[in-house]
C-alpha cells in the first residue's frame, strides 16, 4: 500500500466528508476526527515506511511504499518523514478533540484532517515548485477555515492574507527558476544573490516578516482565535520545514553565515517589536495577532543556530509551543463564550466568573516571555543559551519580556480586578476546569522533558537532504 493513500488521500477525503456532512454536532464529529488523526499519528510513529513489516511470525508482511508519482513528479514519504508526520497528525488530533469546548462549528473538524493531509502532500514533494505551489494552495484555503459560512468578513485582514500569499508565490517561483545548476554555487554569484533576494521576499510575505507583519493583527481581530491559532500553527510549521529543506538543498544558503546572522537579528527584532506593539494594544484580537507574530520570532531565533541545529531546535521546541498555542487559544475561546467574535469581547471582570480559564489565558501569555533565570519557558531558555549573548540580543529579549509580562499584568487586572459591568454571560464549568488542569499538567510534563523531544527532533530532522 502506498503511504499517500493513508496520510494524504484518506484524511483529505475524510476531512471533506466531515466538513460537508450536514448531520452531526461538533461534539459527535470530534471523536471521528480525533480518532482518525490520532490513529494516523500512531501508525506514523510505530510503522516503518518503505520497509516490509513482518506480520504473524514472518509468514506475511506489510509494506508502505514510500514514493508515488504524479505526472512524472516524485512525492516521497519515507522513514525519515515519520517524525514530523506523526507530530502533524497528533497535533491535529488534539485540536480536533478540544474543538467542542471551544464551541467550534462542525466544519472545523473537517479542517483538522484536511489541512495536515494537504501539508503532508506539500512536504512530501521532491520538486521545489510542487512544494511551493502546494503550500500556497494550503494558505489560500485558510480563507475558508478562518471565515466559515455563518460569519461575515469584518475588514481587510483576510484580503491582506490573500494578497500576501498571492504576491509571495510568484517571487518564490521566479527564485526557483533561477536555481537549477546553482546548487553548489558561491553566495557571491550574482544569479544566486538575485535568487536569494526573491526567495527572501517571498518567504517574508508568506511568514509575515516585518514590514509585512500587519496581516497578523488584522486577521487576529477578525478571526476566532481557535481557528486562527490552528491555521497559523500548521502553515507556519510546514513553511519552516519547507524552508529548511530548501536551505539544505542549496549550498549557498546553508553555508552562508549572513543568513544565520540575519535570522538572529530578525528573531530578536521580531520579539522586541512584537513585545512593544503588544503592550500598546487595546483590542484583544489584535493582541492575539501580535502574540502569533511574536511566536515567529522564536522560530527565527531557533533557525539562526544553523541548519541542522536550528531545525532540531525548532522541532524539539515545537511540541511545547504547539501545546501552549492550543491551550492558550482554547482558553481564550472559552473565556469569550457565549460570543464567538473577539472584537466584541469585553474582558472586564470575566475572570471572576471563569477564574481557571482566565488564569490560563494570563499564564499562557506570560509563558511566551523570555523569563530571565527561570526555566518557565523551555524554548526561551534553550534558545537564549544557544545564541551568543550580546547587548542587542539582551536588549531585544528584555523589551519582549517587558511587553509580554506587562500585557499579562494588564490583562490580569482587567479580568480579575475590574468589576463586571453586568451579570456574567458565562461561567466556566467543572469540566472546563478539569480540562485546564489536565492541559497544565500535560504542558508541564512536555515542557520539562527536553531530552525526550531532543531525541525525537534529531530523528525528525534527518528528513532534510
Amino acid at each position, binding site marked *: 500500500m502506498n503511504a499517500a493513500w493513508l496520510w494524504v488521500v484518506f484524511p483529505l477525503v475524510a476531512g471533506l466528508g466531515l466538513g460537508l456532512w450536514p448531520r452531526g454536532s461538533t461534539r459527535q464529529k470530534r471523536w471521528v476526527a480525533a480518532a482518525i488523526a490520532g490513529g494516523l499519528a500512531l501508525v506514523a510513529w510505530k510503522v516503518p515506511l518503505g520497509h516490509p513489516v513482518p506480520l504473524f511470525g514472518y509468514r506475511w508482511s506489510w509494506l508502505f511504499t514510500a514514493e508515488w508519482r*504524479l*505526472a*512524472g*513528479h516524485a512525492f516521497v514519504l519515507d522513514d525519515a518523514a515519520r517524525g514530523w508526520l506523526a507530530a502533524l497528525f497528533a497535533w491535529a488530533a488534539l485540536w480536533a478533540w478540544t474543538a467542542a469546548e471551544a464551541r467550534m462549528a462542525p466544519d472545523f473538524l473537517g479542517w483538522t484532517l484536511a489541512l495536515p493531509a494537504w501539508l503532508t502532500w506539500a512536504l512530501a514533494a521532491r*520538486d521545489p*515548485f*510542487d512544494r511551493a*505551489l*502546494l503550500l*500556497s*494552495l494550503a494558505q*489560500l*484555503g485558510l*480563507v*475558508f477555515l478562518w*471565515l466559515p*459560512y455563518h*460569519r*461575515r*468578513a*469584518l*475588514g*481587510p485582514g*483576510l*484580503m491582506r492574507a*490573500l*494578497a500576501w500569499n*498571492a*504576491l509571495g*508565490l*510568484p517571487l518564490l*517561483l*521566479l527564485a526557483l*527558476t*533561477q536555481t537549477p545548476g546553482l546548487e553548489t554555487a558561491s553566495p557571491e554569484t*550574482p544569479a544566486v544573490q*538575485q535568487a536569494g533576494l526573491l526567495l527572501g521576499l517571498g518567504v517574508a510575505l508568506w511568514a509575515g516578516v516585518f514590514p509585512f507583519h500587519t496581516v497578523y493583527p488584522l486577521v487576529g481581530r477578525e478571526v476566532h482565535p481557535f481557528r486562527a491559532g490552528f491555521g497559523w500553527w500548521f502553515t507556519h510549521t510546514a513553511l519552516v520545514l519547507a524552508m529548511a529543506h530548501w536551505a539544505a538543498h542549496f549550498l549557498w544558503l546553508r553555508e552562508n553565515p549572513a543568513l544565520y546572522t540575519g535570522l538572529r537579528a530578525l528573531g530578536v527584532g521580531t520579539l522586541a517589536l512584537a513585545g512593544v506593539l503588544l503592550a500598546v494594544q487595546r483590542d484583544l484580537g489584535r493582541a492575539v495577532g501580535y502574540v502569533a507574530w511574536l511566536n515567529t520570532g522564536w522560530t527565527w531565533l531557533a533557525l539562526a543556530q544553523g541548519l541542522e541545529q536550528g531545525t532540531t531546535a525548532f522541532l524539539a521546541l515545537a511540541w511545547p509551543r504547539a501545546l501552549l498555542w492550543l491551550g492558550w487559544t482554547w482558553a481564550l475561546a472559552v473565556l469569550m463564550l457565549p460570543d464567538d467574535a473577539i472584537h466584541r469581547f469585553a474582558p472586564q471582570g470575566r475572570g471572576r466568573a471563569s477564574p481557571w480559564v482566565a488564569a490560563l489565558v494570563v499564564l499562557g501569555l506570560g509563558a511566551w516571555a523570555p523569563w530571565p533565570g527561570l526555566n518557565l519557558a523551555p524554548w526561551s531558555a534553550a534558545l537564549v543559551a544557544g545564541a551568543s549573548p550580546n547587548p542587542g540580543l539582551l536588549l531585544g529579549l528584555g523589551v519582549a519580556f517587558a511587553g509580554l509580562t506587562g500585557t499579562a499584568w494588564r490583562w490580569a487586572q482587567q479580568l480579575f480586578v475590574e468589576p463586571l459591568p453586568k451579570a456574567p454571560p458565562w461561567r466556566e464549568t467543572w469540566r472546563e476546569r478539569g480540562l485546564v488542569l489536565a492541559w497544565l499538567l500535560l504542558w508541564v510534563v512536555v515542557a520539562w522533558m527536553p531530552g525526550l523531544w531532543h531525541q525525537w527532533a534529531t530523528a525528525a530532522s534527518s528528513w532534510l537532504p
Partner: protein
Amino acid sequence: MPFASWDVVALALMAGIAWLLLVLEDWRSLLISLAALEAALGSALLAVWGPTLVVMHLLAGWLAAAMLGLGQTMHRRKHPAPRPLTGRVVRGLAGVLTLALVFSVGPVLARAWPTVPEAVRWAAAATALLGLMQTAWSRHPLRLSIGLLTVLAGFAPLFAWQHADLLTTGWLAGFQLLLAWSGSYLLHQTAVGEEAL
C-alpha cells in the same frame, strides 16, 4: 517555437489591458477585460508552451473571471454610481507613470532575466506592476482579486520562458482558480462590500 511579431502584439495588449483594468469602473467591463487579458496572455504563451499547457492556463483564467462574476452577482449589489472622472484620470495617469517606470528599470530586468526576450520582460513587468497598483488601490474584494490575478498574469510569461511543465502549470491553474474562489467568497461574505468599486 519562434518569437513572432504577433507575440509582441499580444504582449503589448497585455500591458494595455492591465492599464484598462486600473481605469475601468463597471464590474462587467472589468471581468470582460480580465478574460481578454487571459486570452492575450495565452496567445503570447503559445510561443514557448505547447497548446495543452496554454489551454489549461487559459481555461483557468477564464474560469477565474467567471467565478468572480458569479460572486459579484450573488452579492446582489446595486450597480454603483460612477465615480467622478477625476478618480479615473488619476488612476490612468498613475498607470502611465508605472509604464514609464518599467522602461526606466529595463536594464535591471535585462540583468535579472537575460535569457527572456526583451518584449516579454517589459510586458511582464508592466502587467505585474499595474496589477500591484490595482491591488494596493482598493479594499474591495473584486478589485483586489482582479489585481492579484493581473499580477499573476504578469508573472506568467517570465515563468513560462524559463519553465514548462504539465504538473506545475496545473498547480498554477489551480492556484488561479482557488484565488478567484476565495475572492468570490470574500465578496459574498464581506460586510464592507457596499463601498463603490
